[in-house]
């Protein structure tokens, strides 16, 4: 359709394409019991035309993928428990449970430590804690930040929706839908301008498709050949509307492909698929091949967000959402997706690949639980903020005057 485009563009059927055989063994097809359609089965899929990068990972690296998924999951479950049971807990969260494989698979392909002028940068969304953990943010300090503590990652100024840690290239969360995408292309622009092989990645939901920023980011990334990767987590809903309310595309990736940007649809529940697509995109970006787009089909288990004082099944908690009037998530849909849990899929794959055995997996999980419990315990003991500090950090130096007293 567009003869300026030399790229082979991912057709929407790609996620259903036959897998290549993996060196780690041919996996049995686990039939789906749920109502999930047009998703791949529960197996470590290599698309016919994505090189199967994950097969070359060491056992340690594969276990790390699994560990990251678990950290995100246990951080969420622990925080949800705090909200439901601890009257002193104040943090809120936009839960990521169900989507963990996306952040974990993508960030495992990035440079997450080293000097600031060499690490890759990640721009996150209003749903950042999974991305933050995967990018390597210090979890205890993140827990403290989410509970508004003075020693939190951002001194209690940020809370969940503005988490930021440039030291690990986590430029940060952004509560607005849209603006982060053009901003992320700006970091990519800087990398290209100064001849660096760094890569800029933005995570966004299906809700970002309709924003005007979608066009700006993709169009400029393509024209200027920027080392930019747009990871669109299509969890089917933007707040209270199904994505078909805002997009004429079945696969949003096809909108990106129209710009001539190599675009893939992957099963976001399968960390190996995500890893493979991300690795391909990162390799392309580093070598000057320009932008890529990855649409991960995924699902969140909980409501749009949760807050302290929540009661299960009520607004802001973990059941149906009474504000969801126009369109809401059917019970069967939630259950069907839960049957394809990213933790289970990763565990099973690793066991089948022999990277881990069942006991080993349990040990990792026990480790992670302990680490997360310790993080929350540390956070709960951190000092609260000093009121007057609110006048700091407006500019690099100095404080602004108090004005609230007249």
């Amino acid at each position, binding site marked *: 359709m567009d003869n300026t485009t030399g790229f082979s563009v991912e057709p929407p059927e790609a996620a259903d394409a036959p897998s290549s055989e993996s060196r780690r063994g041919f996996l049995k097809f686990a039939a789906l019991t749920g109502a999930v359609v047009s998703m791949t089965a529960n197996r470590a899929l290599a698309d016919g035309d994505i090189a199967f990068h994950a097969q070359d990972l060491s056992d340690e690296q594969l276990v790390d993928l699994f560990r990251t998924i678990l950290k995100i999951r246990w951080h969420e479950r622990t925080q949800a428990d705090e909200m439901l049971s601890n009257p002193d807990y104040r943090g809120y969260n936009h839960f990521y449970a169900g989507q963990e494989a996306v952040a974990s698979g993508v960030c495992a392909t990035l440079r997450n430590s080293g000097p600031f002028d060499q690490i890759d940068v990640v721009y996150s969304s209003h749903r950042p804690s999974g991305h933050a953990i995967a990018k390597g943010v210090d979890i205890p300090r993140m827990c403290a930040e989410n509970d508004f503590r003075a020693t939190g990652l951002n001194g209690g100024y940020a809370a969940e929706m503005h988490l930021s840690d440039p030291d690990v290239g986590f430029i940060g969360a952004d509560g607005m839908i849209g603006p982060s995408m053009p901003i992320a292309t700006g970091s990519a622009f800087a990398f290209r301008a100064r001849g660096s092989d760094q890569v800029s990645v933005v995570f966004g939901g299906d809700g970002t498709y309709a924003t005007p920023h979608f066009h700006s980011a993709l169009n400029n990334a393509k024209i200027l050949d920027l080392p930019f990767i747009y990871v669109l987590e299509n969890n089917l809903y933007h707040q*209270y509307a199904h994505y078909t309310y805002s997009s004429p595309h079945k696969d949003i990736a096809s909108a990106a492909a129209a710009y001539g940007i190599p675009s893939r649809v992957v099963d976001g529940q399968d960390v190996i698929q995500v890893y493979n697509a991300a690795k391909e995109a990162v390799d392309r970006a580093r070598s000057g091949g320009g932008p890529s787009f990855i649409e991960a089909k995924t699902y969140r288990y909980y409501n749009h967000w949760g807050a302290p004082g929540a009661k299960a099944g009520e607004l802001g908690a973990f059941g149906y959402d009474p504000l969801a*009037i126009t369109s809401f998530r059917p019970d069967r849909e939630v259950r069907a997706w839960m049957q394809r849990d990213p933790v289970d899929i990763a565990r099973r794959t690793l066991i089948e690949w022999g990277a881990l055995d069942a006991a080993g997996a349990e040990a990792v999980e026990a480790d992670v639980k302990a680490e997360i419990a310790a993080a929350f315990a540390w956070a709960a003991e951190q000092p609260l903020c000093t009121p007057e500090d*609110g006048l700091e950090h407006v500019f690099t130096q100095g404080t602004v*005057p108090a004005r*609230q007293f007249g």
Partner: protein
Amino acid sequence: MTQKSWMYSVLEAVQWEMQNDPKMIWIFELTPPVASTPGRPVINLETEFGRKRVVNTGIDENWMASCCLGASLAGSPSATYIPYQGALMPFQVIQNVAGKLRHMTGGRASMPVTWIIEMTGQTPGFAGQHSCYEEDSYYAHIPGVRTVVPSTPFDAKGMMHASLRSPDPVVFLYPAGLRTLVEDVPDEPYEVSLEKAAVRMEGSDLTIVSSGAGMPEVVKAAETLRDEGMGVEVVDLRVLKEMDTDTLVNSVAKTKRLLTVDQSYFTLCPGAEVIARVATNVDGAKYKRVAFPDAPPPASPEMFLWMRPDADKIAGAARGLV
């Protein structure tokens, strides 16, 4: 008369206008046009008027606002609810097109459009983008758009009727901090002027001027001060554009003391305009200005609550002035 919230009152006005003008449309994004109150029917514009006239869209507030503008130019009264996260997304089109179009066309353009723009603010825990109260000043600098900020359910309903019937574009600011406010509001349609401030309390020692989400704490402070024996006059601006200079000047000509209170950032908050208008018209008065500092609101409740103007701080400032 029934006890109604700000939002119920507004939707009641919208519902009446939509029933009486089949051309009228409503666009929304994440906030469904639904409200309820004891003793009155639930209002649900989407189910009542159907999806051709009432549409749930994607996350593109600039399109929502532009769509309503275009509908109004084609003769359809239109309204939209822009959630606070997107409050400035449509700024350019309102400022640069809607605000100028009537004048630029020599009076030919008619724009019966109302943008309900939510302002957050006053919510500890949500940093910056999710608890700022600042849109009042940005929108009030625009000529050609009536910018109002009703602080009571009664005003909200009457000003909504007036807005929807006006061929002038209206920015109708909704301070989300007022969402729990409830008062008796008539069930019938009525209009409240888009040009007048309201004197909420009379007195001769001191004038306090505020608006929108600033009002509840101002009224609380004023009651305390009155109990202490101070003659406080409280003015609720209600209308930021065109600001009602006469009411302000008349009051301060009497009291000779002016305290302005804003939840907006200090620099160029509505109170700055109030003081400037009064100072050029009244000699020898004394002035104080309470506002949120020129800093984004931090997430931490300790910091945020200290920075936000409240009744105690307002009363303190008033005592310092009189």
